[in-house]
């Protein structure tokens, strides 16, 4: 054994291992680890790779349904979408790298999540991204928005997968920790899905893709620590993406997957060769002998430590059936990618690394991969807040002025400036483009489609983690239902501050409880996900942000609903109860500069009943225009429908309503625009089953007429909604 160096508890601490964790490593090995082994322990047991603070709680989430083929634990979740096909999807964070180097951080976030999906045999059909930036007034925000958007576009546009949706909001809690959550959805033949469990003693372990360089070493460890004022110095731990190589890798992998040469495949993401090799070996209960001299290297003089910890992008590890090396090599040579046999599977249960004739590391697989530390961290529940209704709120602006202010606010304004930088049409199957409730992407060559969306309202989760967790799932479900899709499953990307602080851990525990409850009530299981802790700078945490990415199935692409009101004389109908909940609302924040109050409660039984009613009417062809009511309430929802379709609305405002009616964010509500005949039928049908249905207006003309509160012309509304983001970015 080489390098029986003086690894100490202090050196371990510099690697992010606690004294207890280091003692455990020594106990597992029966000796002190050498430097390379220490590096491997540190990344395998980092929060990012081991989920040591979150595992206990993640286990409580519902992950099963008859249509779930593979739940959490693999590279991505897999669900059955009929016709012999499976949808494979996952969302993942790339927060820390994106703050340090926004273009490359965001680009490699997209690259990483794409690989997670095509590793399993799927052709990616869509990308989405949920972005949270700091206050627009913060000195860095403009630079971060510009770099992140360019990075996401630069990667997705080049590889040729459409970026079809997502979110982008701003809040001062993200000033020092932006969130970049990227989601990919892919489609694979149901009977040809690839997993990461190594099998077959003597089978070759293959390295394909880009060469390994010194970039991104300890990225996973960085993602498991808080930022401080010196964080900019961590730039060398950020990786550099090459979407062209990823495109080649995608095509080469799919070509190889069409043969039967692959036993197991795993991308090299966080913690690179270390986590990919350990995960494959561990899932298959195997050992691996690796000859590190065979790893394709970008530079000379790289050490075993660097090779094992590098996070160079666009690389895959594959276990092939013995004897199929030449077939596989021919494919990768065609695509001009590196291909190297770097090891063999063994029955030793150990990872043995050799370099220049020496054994440089010798570690037992199972204890490292499966017996990682697990913590039940102390947690404290957030205090319960009181509801806030219209009568509790001082009126600062007229309805008309408040609506214009909201439509031009950073969170609600049009994000066209962003999504026009993304190729959202390549692959020629994008049916509903960005800017709607959910994007709709046709399943190629068929008349069916997938709807997809990402959702979370961090201010709700901050005010009440349980209700906020529920709401994130419910809104995702609602956005899919509003297009006519049957919601099938979700992926979660859980972004929080430091789990070592009780109130943050309390937010996490509460949000998981809410997510789990909603997911059970709506038959909307969690099939994949990721946890990102330590999103805080100098002790200030972000608003808790459990992003929920959902996928639903549309049986007929010609029977969907869209947001835009595009015809005159339609009846505008509101489904669902309106109490006028203004706690933690955007109205309160933007107009009254207050973030107080409890978020709107989520009634999951009502969500389900109303959502299913709406979907049945879209499927039957009666409803072709539908929008869910969320941020900004009823007033904003109608304004968005008017802008999207280009036809105005005259509102019929019930007597005695206040700004709670206009801007309250009560949940489980949808707005439909239907012809007069269907309107009567829908109202009577919904009342029969106990769903409140209110006619709130009629379409026509080119103004949004708010009744006694005045009117707004479409061109004024458009100027406000479309103006803020380009104005801000070009300032």
């Amino acid at each position, binding site marked *: 054994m080489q390098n029986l160096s003086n690894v100490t508890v202090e050196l371990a601490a510099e690697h992010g291992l606690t004294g207890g964790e280091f003692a455990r490593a020594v106990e597992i090995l029966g000796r002190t680890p050498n430097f390379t082994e220490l590096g491997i322990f540190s990344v395998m047991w980092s929060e990012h790779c081991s989920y040591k603070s979150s595992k206990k709680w993640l286990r409580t989430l519902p992950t099963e349904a008859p249509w779930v083929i593979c739940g959490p634990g693999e590279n991505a979740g897999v669900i059955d979408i009929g016709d012999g096909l499976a949808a494979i999807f996952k969302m993942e964070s790339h927060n820390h790298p994106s703050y340090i180097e926004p273009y490359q951080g965001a680009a490699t976030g997209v690259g990483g999540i794409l690989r997670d999906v095509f590793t399993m045999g799927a052709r990616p059909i869509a990308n989405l991204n949920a972005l949270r930036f700091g206050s627009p007034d913060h000195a860095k925000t403009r630079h971060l928005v510009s770099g992140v958007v360019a990075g996401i576009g630069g990667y997705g546009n*080049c590889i040729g997968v459409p970026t079809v949706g997502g979110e982008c909001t701003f809040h001062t809690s993200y000033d020092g920790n932006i969130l970049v959550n990227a989601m990919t959805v892919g489609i694979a033949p149901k009977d040809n899905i690839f997993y990461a469990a190594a099998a077959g003693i003597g089978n070759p372990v293959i390295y394909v893709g880009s060469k390994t360089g010194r970039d991104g070493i300890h990225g996973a460890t960085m993602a498991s620590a808080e930022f401080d004022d010196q964080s900019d110095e961590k730039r060398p731990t950020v990786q550099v993406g090459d979407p062209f190589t990823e495109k080649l890798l995608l095509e080469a992998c799919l070509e190889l997957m069409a043969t039967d040469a692959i036993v197991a495949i795993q991308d090299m993401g966080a913690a690179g060769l270390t986590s990919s090799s350990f995960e494959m070996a561990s899932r298959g209960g195997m050992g691996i002998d690796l000859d590190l001299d065979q790893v394709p290297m970008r530079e000379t003089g790289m050490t075993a430590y660097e090779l094992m910890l590098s996070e160079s992008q666009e690389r895959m590890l594959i276990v092939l059936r013995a004897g199929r090396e030449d077939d596989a090599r021919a494919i990768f040579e065609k*695509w001009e990618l590196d291909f190297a046999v770097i090891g063999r599977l063994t029955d030793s249960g150990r990872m043995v690394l050799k370099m220049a004739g020496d054994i440089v590391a010798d570690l037992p697989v199972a204890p490292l991969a499966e017996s990682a530390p697990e913590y039940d961290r102390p947690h404290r529940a957030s205090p319960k807040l009181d509801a806030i209704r219209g009568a509790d709120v001082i009126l600062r602006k007229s309805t008309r002025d408040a609506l214009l202010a909201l439509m031009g606010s950073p969170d609600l304004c049009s994000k066209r400036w962003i999504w026009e930088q993304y190729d959202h049409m390549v692959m020629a199957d994008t049916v509903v483009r960005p800017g709607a409730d959910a994007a709709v992407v046709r399943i190629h060559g068929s008349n069916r489609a997938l709807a997809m969306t990402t959702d979370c309202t961090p201010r709700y989760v901050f005010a009440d983690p349980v209700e906020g967790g529920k709401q994130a799932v419910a809104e995702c479900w609602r956005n899919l239902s509003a297009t006519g899709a049957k919601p099938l499953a979700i992926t979660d990307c859980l972004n929080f501050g430091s789990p070592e602080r009780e109130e943050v851990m309390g937010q996490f525990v509460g949000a998981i409880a809410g997510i789990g409850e909603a997911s059970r009530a709506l038959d909307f299981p969690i099939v994949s996900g990721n946890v990102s802790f330590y999103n805080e700078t100098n002790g200030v945490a972000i608003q808790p942000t459990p992003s929920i990415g959902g996928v639903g199935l549309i049986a007929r692409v010609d029977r969907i609903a869209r947001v835009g009101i595009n015809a005159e004389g339609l009846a505008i109908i509101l489904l669902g109860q309106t109490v006028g909940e203004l706690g933690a609302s955007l109205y309160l924040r933007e107009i009254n500069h207050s973030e107080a109050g409890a978020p709107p409660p989520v009634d999951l039984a009502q969500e389900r009943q109303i959502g299913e009613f709406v979907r049945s009417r879209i499927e039957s062809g009666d409803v072709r225009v539908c929008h869910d009511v969320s941020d900004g309430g009823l007033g904003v929802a109608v304004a968005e429908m008017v802008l999207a379709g280009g036809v105005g609305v005259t509102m019929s405002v019930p007597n005695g309503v206040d700004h709670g009616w206009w801007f309250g964010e009560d949940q489980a509500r949808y707005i439909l625009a239907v012809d007069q005949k269907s309107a009567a039928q829908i109202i009577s049908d919904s009342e029969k089953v106990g769903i409140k249905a209110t006619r709130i207006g009629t379409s026509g003309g080119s103004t949004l007429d708010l009744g006694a509160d005045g009117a707004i012309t479409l061109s004024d509304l458009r100027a406000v909604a479309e103006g803020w983001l380009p104005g801000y970015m070009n300032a």
Partner: protein
Amino acid sequence: MKAAVIVFPGSNCDRDLMVALEQSAGAAPTMVWHRETTLPDVDLIAVPGGFSYGDYLRSGAMAARSPIMKAVVEDARRGVAVLGVCNGFQILTESGLLPGVLMRNRDLRYVCRDVFLRVEQNDTPFSNKYAQGQVVKIPIAHHDGNFFIDSDGHRQLEDEGRIAFRYCDSAGLVDNRSNPNGSLANIAGVLDPSRRILGMMPHPERLSDPNLGGNDGRALFDSILNALS
């Protein structure tokens, strides 16, 4: 009508172009890998969009020097029709089959959106199903679509009627506001002197299906079928 679609490493609209051609012609085109040195006997060679060779060096520059492009140039000189879309247009200018260059967009950002085009010439194999002066909606998606040519070259294109499409607004007005990328004289597509080679930045294959939000691209492929069958 027999067609071939060239596939470079990094092409990503090859399938979209194949689907659109098949939809109009009724037969699937042959996909031809960049390392080939000869083309099958076809009526049309289509060079698709994407990021050939990652657009490294300069968009289209490396693809223009790949083995298959020698065969494309030779067949084009023999009179085989050639359509280049987006990156395909960039490759055709880089390989000398079409004049001018595609520079970085005026505002330096990638842009993907529907734009309106005015059909400037409808007496070509690519546009005979459109009316002269017709305004059509076709999307663009590019970072380097800002067409430029020197003033002599520009005059020649105008005089010879070789500007196939110009960016315009929904009423057909060609002005600076309707120019999405800064292209000289709002030029969106140009023809070679034989009028059998067309390069265009907009993607007709992306709006050739009403389910996707428009069908104006379809007539371009129907025109090809009409002219070359």
